[in-house]
């Protein structure tokens, strides 16, 4: 019954332009992470009276690159607006942003991100500055008697990318964000592995209800959780005959719930007007053409190329490219590896999965192309089994030790000596003689014997060979 109530989701994605060396409107270094509070600030990003903002030219170039990659219309003139609100994280009481209104426009409009055949329309892209970071002394916004402010983040360049409400479920939202993240990484706009570099406001409504906005969700997987939570909450309300009101909610990522916040602000309340400190700047066709020429290979064409050039499946190519670092690792290792499909399988099914299962990031891994090449060579030459490869992967990822070294130290080389394996099979049968008759009735029992032999050899025996020898010996 509840499944008849469709959900509609639109996202406002905020991404830091992490490739910039300085902030958006001043020359303070943009690398603010792990610095002492308020040690990376100047009159402009502190919002002191009289300080004049001047736009970072590289920020404009990156914004145009994103606009081109998402197939947007680009505004003929760059204009900034002041978005007013009183909050301790914004000392000058307005954020420099862009606004689509009379005489002023966002830098780009009307683009799209394609998820296979499904089109997610992009409404607009804004360039804007990040506010300061608020630290709550009790750890919670609700119980803190005051706010601690660190302006190091204030003025960091961001893009706000707004979709139309074309997303229909949590999974699709996750796919959209993965694709967007890959595009931004290929454009060298945002290294999304940096904590907090990609945040989103989630607008979600269920048939028959009003739109609810969940503010400031910290990661793509949290976005998925928000949509699942909110669609269940809103559906339940509607099925009970209650109204879903238009409101703003906050995501509590510890308790995994959304909480209503009392503030209700409309566009008018922000009192947008063109920022007199930043005169309009024409964006010429020639300039756009020049930026276009510098566009790198984007995810869709890279997927095509990988599957053609290396003959790997489209699925594997897609998984690789959705994490630019993984695709880079694949291509770097492929120079010295022959079996590309096996390489891609190892990277996806073993390497990536191990990292994902532990909620780690690819950037946390110490494995380099050299490690992966050597691991593949050990596998290909039969020195180790796939089971051993899986077993030593964590040591490679966490410690950056070379595979050969680990194998030698732990004596994990593959046992392929037929005589030795036969002796071990004998041992197993001596321990459990009934296996001989059992296996003749049910050939599947052979797998059980293989397991026993593997255990006795510390997983070093080649399972295929063991299987073959058992069947030969017992005449199955």
């Amino acid at each position, binding site marked *: 019954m509840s499944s008849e109530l469709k959900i509609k989701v639109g996202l406002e994605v905020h991404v830091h332009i992490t490739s910039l060396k300085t902030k958006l409107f001043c020359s303070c270094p943009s690398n603010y992470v792990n610095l002492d509070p*308020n040690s990376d600030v100047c009159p402009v990003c502190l919002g002191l009276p009289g300080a004049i903002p001047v736009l970072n030219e590289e920020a404009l170039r990156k914004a145009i690159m994103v606009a081109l990659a998402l197939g947007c219309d680009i505004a003929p003139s760059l204009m900034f607006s002041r978005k007013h609100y009183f909050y301790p994280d914004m000392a000058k009481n307005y954020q420099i942003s862009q606004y689509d209104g009379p005489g002023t426009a966002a830098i780009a409009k009307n683009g799209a991100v394609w998820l296979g055949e499904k089109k997610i329309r992009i409404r607009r892209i804004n360039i804007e500055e990040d506010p300061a970071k608020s630290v709550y002394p009790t750890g919670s916004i609700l119980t803190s008697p005051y*706010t601690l402010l660190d302006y190091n983040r204030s003025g960091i360049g961001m893009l706000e990318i707004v979709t139309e409400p074309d997303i229909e479920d949590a999974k699709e939202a996750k796919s959209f964000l993965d694709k967007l993240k890959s595009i931004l990484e290929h454009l060298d706009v945002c290294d999304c592995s940096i904590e907090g570099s990609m945040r989103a406001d989630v607008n979600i409504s269920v048939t028959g209800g009003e739109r609810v906005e969940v503010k400031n969700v910290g990661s793509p997987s949290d976005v998925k959780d928000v949509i699942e939570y909110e669609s269940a909450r809103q559906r339940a309300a509607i099925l009970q005959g209650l109204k879903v009101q238009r409101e703003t909610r906050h995501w509590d990522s510890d308790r995994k719930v959304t909480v209503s916040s009392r503030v209700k602000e409309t566009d008018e309340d922000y009192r947008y007007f063109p920022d007199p400190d930043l*005169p309009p700047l024409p964006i010429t066709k020639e300039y756009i053409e020049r930026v276009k020429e510098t566009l790198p290979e984007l995810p869709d064409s890279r997927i095509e190329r990988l599957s053609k050039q290396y003959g790997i499946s489209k699925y594997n190519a897609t998984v690789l490219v959705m994490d630019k670092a993984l695709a880079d690792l694949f291509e770097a290792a492929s120079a010295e590896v022959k079996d590309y499909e096996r390489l891609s399988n190892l990277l996806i099914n073993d390497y990536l999965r191990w990292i994902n299962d532990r909620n780690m990031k690819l950037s946390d891994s110490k494995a380099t192309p050299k490690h992966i090449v050597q691991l593949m060579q050990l596998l290909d030459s039969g020195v180790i089994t796939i089971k051993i490869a899986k077993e030593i992967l964590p040591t490679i990822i966490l410690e950056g030790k070379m595979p050969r070294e680990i194998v030698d130290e732990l004596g994990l080389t593959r046992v392929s000596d037929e005589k030795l394996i036969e002796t071990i099979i004998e041992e197993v049968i001596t321990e459990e003689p009934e296996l001989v008759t059992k296996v003749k009735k049910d050939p599947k029992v052979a797998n059980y014997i293989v397991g026993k032999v593997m255990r006795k050899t510390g997983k070093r025996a080649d399972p295929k060979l063991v299987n073959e020898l058992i069947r030969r010996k017992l005449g199955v």
Partner: protein
Amino acid sequence: MKVSVDEELVRKLESLALISLSPEERREIVKDLSRILDFFNKIDEINLEDVEPMFHPLSQGRLRKDQPRDPLPRDEAIKNAKKKKDGYIIGPSTTGG
């Protein structure tokens, strides 16, 4: 766009501007705002159909190279803050509680 100014609108503006007015001040402001808006309504009578809006007397903004410069020394940066703690500036609670 006609806006009618009444006490309710002024109350909303007070909350947006984080100030509170006395009843007398509020009555004064209603009068002032109405007069100001009347001036704008007069300006609105001009036909500007073929005129490009101008937002700035300077014709063109400028850009800056993406080259870092030293930020302010921290002591200087937070010198004017009334309340501070461990290098942070202390601001009000944001939940109105």
